[in-house]
């Protein structure tokens, strides 16, 4: 799993939540709010991304993230930690 792959998962779920947003126009340095996402849109995008990547990030940690790139970094880190804990691919 690469940073780009995680980013594309997030963007896929973000464009589903916002009318007339296309993946290629998303700037990862921006917040989802900059694209008109409301608080519940963000909850759905984050939880859908976590489900797809099969990771769980504590709410307190999510609250400190400010842009899409930051979210990808945290999701990838937790994904890597999970792989390290289960080297045989279990879970």
């Amino acid at each position, binding site marked *: 799993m690469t940073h780009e792959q995680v980013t594309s998962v997030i963007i896929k779920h973000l464009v589903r*939540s916002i*009318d007339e947003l296309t993946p290629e126009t998303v700037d990862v340095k921006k917040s989802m709010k900059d694209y*008109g996402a*409301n*608080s*519940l*849109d963000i*909850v*759905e995008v984050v939880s859908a991304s976590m489900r797809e990547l099969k990771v769980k990030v504590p*709410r*307190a940690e999510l*609250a400190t993230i400010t842009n899409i790139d930051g979210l990808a970094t945290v999701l990838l880190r937790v994904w890597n930690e999970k792989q390290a804990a289960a080297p045989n691919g279990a879970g």
Partner: protein
Amino acid sequence: MSESQGRVDVSVASGIVTIGMCDVYGRNALSGPFVEELLAALLAVGRMADSRVVVLFGLSDVFCAGANLDVLEKVVAGEVVPGDHLLSKALLDMPVPTIAAMEGHAIGGGLALGLCADISIIARESRYGCSFMNMGFTPGMGSTRLLENVLSPAIAHELLYSGERRRGADFEGRSGFNHILPRADVRSKAYEIAERVADKPRVALEALKRVLSADKRRAFEETRATETLMHAVSFGEGDIRQRIKDNYGQ
């Protein structure tokens, strides 16, 4: 006439009664004081002899968010008996037609409340769903049956099981919501309908309302007992307290 009590605002003009849920501080979550104030407003409006139609709306970004954290924790702990189903009942029992203008999100008990109205309008950009099961307990406030008034049973059941909060736009072409509009147009559409209804005689409106709402009121009464029993079972299980905290940490 207009009287403001803080969290709920009631005004009347030409037979159209408007109930505005405007608890900006509490974000229209069903806190103890908010439920009390809203219930009093609904009951008072229900007694108005010259009303012909009722419009219910919330804040522009949140119609109603269901029970707040404090209330939910007390209910799960068995410290208080939930009184929010009385809101559903008060709206269902309104003697004249009711219109819910749900510009903002309506989640859980908030969606159930809106669906007690005879006519419901939602916004493309806002989200609607039932988060009860995300927190590990079964749905309440009549939602196990109320959703089926605007959604096919299949879609209603999917939302109840999954806890998904779906965008208004996603219901287009597959729901019985009266209108799905850009948020900015929801309220004006509600008043457009209200004006047409308010033109009719009160006696006729009252008679028709009683007949058209009979099935819905009966279904609500039946499901209330069932939902209470399911709560008794599901409140005692597993990691509900942590799930509730996680849900409200969002």
